[in-house]
């Protein structure tokens, strides 16, 4: 091998770097697309007719008929509306309860200095509780109170299970706020209520919004309580999808179209919250 000039060496290094970069890039894209494939294929199958959807193909003549049919189905609207009611009501009330609670846990003075930590831990342990552990008493209560198969009954259960998640996430966002602002506000005679609404809420706005979106996704996807506490007229979308096969038989195109409609809002909301999701869910724990 002859002597190489610096320019030649630089060129080889650059070429190697370039190849490595693109090689890795291609591997990453292939894996990502394969990983996403079931969702992608479901989305595509919605554009097929039932005959086309029987055999798995990627290339076909797309039609909007199936989506149109699913969307013009009044029962689909009913489930969609039920889900929306649960998501909006459940998320809204969970926030109304959870955000002030998180505020009190971070900035409030409770009976003992250790009370804040104790209540916080109590909320966290509630997250560990699996819904099966409460289903039976809830079911018997609801039967006595005639709350079974009502949107209100399901929503109450959702609020109970998702308020702790709001507290958990918002707690970590509030803990990030500089303490000095609240000291100053306190000295200036700002009440706790004003501190919450005029200082804490605007400052932790993005965090609270992402906590809300995440809880909305959780409620939208929740199945166990929805399945056991509702009947046909009040069921939510996940329940509808689970019952799809027994009620309608195997219609792949129709199933794909309705699943796509059911999961699209959650995926889009989820993508919007991904950064805050990591922060809110892991921060407290990673710090130890």
């Amino acid at each position, binding site marked *: 091998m002859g002597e190489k000039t610096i320019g030649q060496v630089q060129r080889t290094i650059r070429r190697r770097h370039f190849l490595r970069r693109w090689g890795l890039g291609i591997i990453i894209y292939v894996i990502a697309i394969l990983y996403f494939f079931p969702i992608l294929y479901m989305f595509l199958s919605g554009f097929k007719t039932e005959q086309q959807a029987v055999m798995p193909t990627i290339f076909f003549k797309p039609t909007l008929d199936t989506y149109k049919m699913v969307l013009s189905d009044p029962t689909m609207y009913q489930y969609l509306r039920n889900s929306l009611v649960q998501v909006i009501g459940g998320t809204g009330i969970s926030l109304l309860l959870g955000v002030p609670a998180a505020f009190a846990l971070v900035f409030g003075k409770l009976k003992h200095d250790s009370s804040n930590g104790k209540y916080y831990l109590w909320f966290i342990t509630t997250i560990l509780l699996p819904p099966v*552990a409460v289903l039976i008493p809830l079911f018997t209560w609801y039967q006595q109170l005639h709350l079974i198969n009502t949107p209100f009954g399901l929503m109450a259960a959702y609020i109970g299970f998702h308020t702790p998640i709001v507290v958990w996430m918002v707690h970590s966002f509030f803990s990030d706020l500089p303490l000095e602002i609240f000291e100053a506000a306190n000295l200036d005679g700002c009440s706790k209520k004003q501190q919450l609404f005029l200082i804490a809420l605007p400052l932790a706005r993005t965090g609270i919004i992402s906590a809300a979106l995440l809880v909305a996704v959780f409620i939208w996807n929740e199945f166990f309580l929805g399945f056991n506490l509702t009947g046909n007229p009040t069921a939510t979308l996940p329940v509808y999808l689970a019952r799809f096969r027994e009620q309608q038989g195997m219609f792949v195109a129709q199933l794909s179209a309705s699943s796509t409609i059911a999961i699209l809002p959650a995926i889009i909301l989820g993508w919007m919250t991904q950064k805050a999701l990591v922060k809110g869910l892991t921060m407290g724990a990673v710090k130890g």
Partner: protein
Amino acid sequence: MICPDSFRADLRSMDAKTSYEKNYTSTIGSVDGKTMKTLRKTDYRFLLPAVIVVAVMTQVPFLLTIIFSTLRWNLSRPDLSRSFDNVQNFWYFLKIDSLSEIPEFYSILWQTVLITGVTLILCSVVGFLLALLLDHDIPGVNIARTLMLGPFFVMSTASGVIWKTTIFNTTFGWYGVIMKAIGLTPTDLVSYHPLSVIIVLFTWQWMPFFILVLLAGLQGIPQDLVDSMKIDGVNWFQGVFTIKLPLIMNHMRVAVMLGLVFIIKEFGLILVTTAGGPGTRSYTLPYAVYMQVFSANNVGRASALAVMTVILTLLLVNLLYRSIVKRNEKYN
């Protein structure tokens, strides 16, 4: 005492706390007990509604479940009165008459642990490798990250139904078609390997979460450390397993802990893919509770199973939590 030492005192260092105390107790130290009481009341006013609602909807029913688990209570036998039954409901599941006939409960328990454990191991190992891969600075890598995150937000019933009809189906699914194309006979995976199918689906759904958390950890590693690694000539293997992995171990543990809590209570996916079958081969504890209530109508036994589900969750979480605390102590 109304002053800022009340704010997150636990998060502040002791020095800062005492200096606040000194400063402000001298200026506003004359606040009488009455004002302090009202202030405390205000703070509880923010906290209590949430505590009450959460307690009524989760804690109280759980206590009732514990009480129910000690009752002989069968909804399909109204002729038998509800009566205190001691630990008979637990004993019914736990009793081993002879070693040749191990009761069904133990296989359900084993399946629950197996599904959760294997899913978590797959998620953390493969998830870590994928997070390493996605940590590279490639044009448009954010699109790939976003795509891979997708399955995490898909409702479990939708993913179950879609995988079952468009992928695992032996005649019309991708699996069947590909197997036939390469000259093999596709087997009905959902019936023959129900546990593997469930594990694959859980892993598909939860790995994105692991990737997300681990990636956040990897990106938190300071750049100068990575640079000095390169200068010191650390090879890839050493760099990943002796430097990067220990640095993000806490992220890993958090992901495993959250994954554990959520996977162990998963129900919908099992219902739509295998429905617990064949027989009870893919039952998990939550699924068994559901079957005890709505098929066997036995409230007492279902409650006993539910209580054991909670015990299992707490036991596993506790084990993990201890390992985290122990590790933190070691490093501090």
